């Protein structure tokens, strides 16, 4: 996040530059109109695609529109079409957990969900959990406990840990936490700090809820 902010101050970002180049190259493709959802009432089916389809996704509490082919994964739509690059694309096979988001409050691999099937669901990404100015208690605990090295797996870990804390509350213990984040991998091996941070963040979420000051623990659940 901080790198991106630095780039923006210079008036150009690496990502913006790449996106601009890509858009110019692919202008002919992008200009193609979205196919309307075909109705086949006789067969009892609606058909979308294979070309781009207009979708309205509910992301972090806001309605966001995208025009994507049915084969577009939710992860690629979030990152490529909505510029929500917190969820990371690593294995793209539902194995590493770096793309973990919440769908209707439950953890999911965004790489293993199609954007078109997420229509109607409440999508929560790491950007919706908290901001640098007002971080979620779990994000704050990860930063305070230095629960990362390269940081690439961190957004997925935070989403999985925050879900575990939301789900288990004060009952979240070491073993439950470890089971809850078994679908996330850290190649740097920061697991001990992740566990410390997650348990600490969970305690703070519970305390905030108990004291009625649950504002920082907004999670879209």
């Amino acid at each position, binding site marked *: 996040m901080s790198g991106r902010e630095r780039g923006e101050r210079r008036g150009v970002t690496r990502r913006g530059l790449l996106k601009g180049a890509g858009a110019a190259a692919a202008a002919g493709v992008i200009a193609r109109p979205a196919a309307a959802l075909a109705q086949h009432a006789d*067969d009892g*089916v609606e058909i979308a695609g*294979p070309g781009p389809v207009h979708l309205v996704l509910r992301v972090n509490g806001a309605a966001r529109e995208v025009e994507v082919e049915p084969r577009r994964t939710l992860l690629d739509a979030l990152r490529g079409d909505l510029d929500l690059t917190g969820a990371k694309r690593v294995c793209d096979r539902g194995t590493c957990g770096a793309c973990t988001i919440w769908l209707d409050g439950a*953890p999911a691999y965004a790489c*293993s969900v199609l954007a078109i*099937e997420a229509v109607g669901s409440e999508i929560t990404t790491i950007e919706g959990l908290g901001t640098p100015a007002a971080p979620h208690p779990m994000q704050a605990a990860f930063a305070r406990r230095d629960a990362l090295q390269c940081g690439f797996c961190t957004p997925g870990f935070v989403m999985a840990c925050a879900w575990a804390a939301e789900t288990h509350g004060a009952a979240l213990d070491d073993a439950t936490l470890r089971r809850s984040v078994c679908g996330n991998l850290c190649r740097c091996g920061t697991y001990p700090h992740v566990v410390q941070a997650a348990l600490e963040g969970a305690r703070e979420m519970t305390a905030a809820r108990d004291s009625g000051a649950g504002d920082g623990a907004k999670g879209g659940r």
Partner: protein
Amino acid sequence: MKAFRYVRPASLAAAARAAAHEGAVLKAGGTDLLDRMKERVTAPDDVVAVGEAGDASRAIVVDADGTLAIGAFATLADVAASPHVRSRLAALAAAAELAASPQIRHRATVGGNLCQRSRCGYYRLLSFPCLRRGDATCPVLEEGAVQEHAALFGNDACASSHPSSLAPVLCAAGARVVVHGGDAPVTRELATFWRAPARGDDSDVDLAPGAVVAELRVPPLAARSGVAYEEVRQRAAFDWALASCAARIALDGEGRIADAAVWLGSVAPAPFRAAGAEAALRGKSPVAGAFDAAAAAALAGARPLPGNAYKADLVRVVVRRALVRAAEGVR
């Protein structure tokens, strides 16, 4: 992924009709299908999102006759958390809880778990030949192949092992499956749901093209019965079983085993019924000696390969453990 049409059916019957066409596939949670599509092992023209059908049920209820009815679109997380499953067939909740990761368990469905395709690494990479993708032979059976995960039983043509952890429990409990084929739904035994591997087959299950799994129906356990599930795997977290066993025993008035079911997972191309173990248990007292004998008998018909002979030991272990726990759970 190849571009495809996304088909939303209004009903299970409409989904079955739409998916009966050449080039169409059914998608529920998609956790297996999308992986295969990304590798182009499966490259459909139409993806029929059957989970979006109005009558696609994820409810888990107990019917008036005591049958545990599980909507096929219940997720593994639903099964693991269901009070009905936990009180009537706790082994199924345990098997669901052990599977995969929370992210997968909240998407993957019961129906999809039973219909998932082989997890064989050779099948899932186009750079290798594979009998089930239409090639002449199975590369797992060749000298020098990686056979660590290969099947121990029924591995003559294809040595892939069936990964479902729910299937052995459901089969041992005598579950039946409700299938919609476009006409009236049909209810059949889950035990005969899978078919032997064949060259170029496009499904692991014995279903007509497009047919939709709608519900699983588990009859109430007989009095004085116990069911347990055990598995062994390399990692405690987020791993497939190397061998698994679901066992059900029912005792008669004298405390002897009147009926037994022993089903194995991850050791054959389909969930495998260890009939030898079942026969060895009938009429015996539920004691360690009988369980040891049953565990040995479970290996009848096994054909270990050079790389997976260790699985025979694992089978003995999981069968014995499952039987001991099933006996402890008799009520």
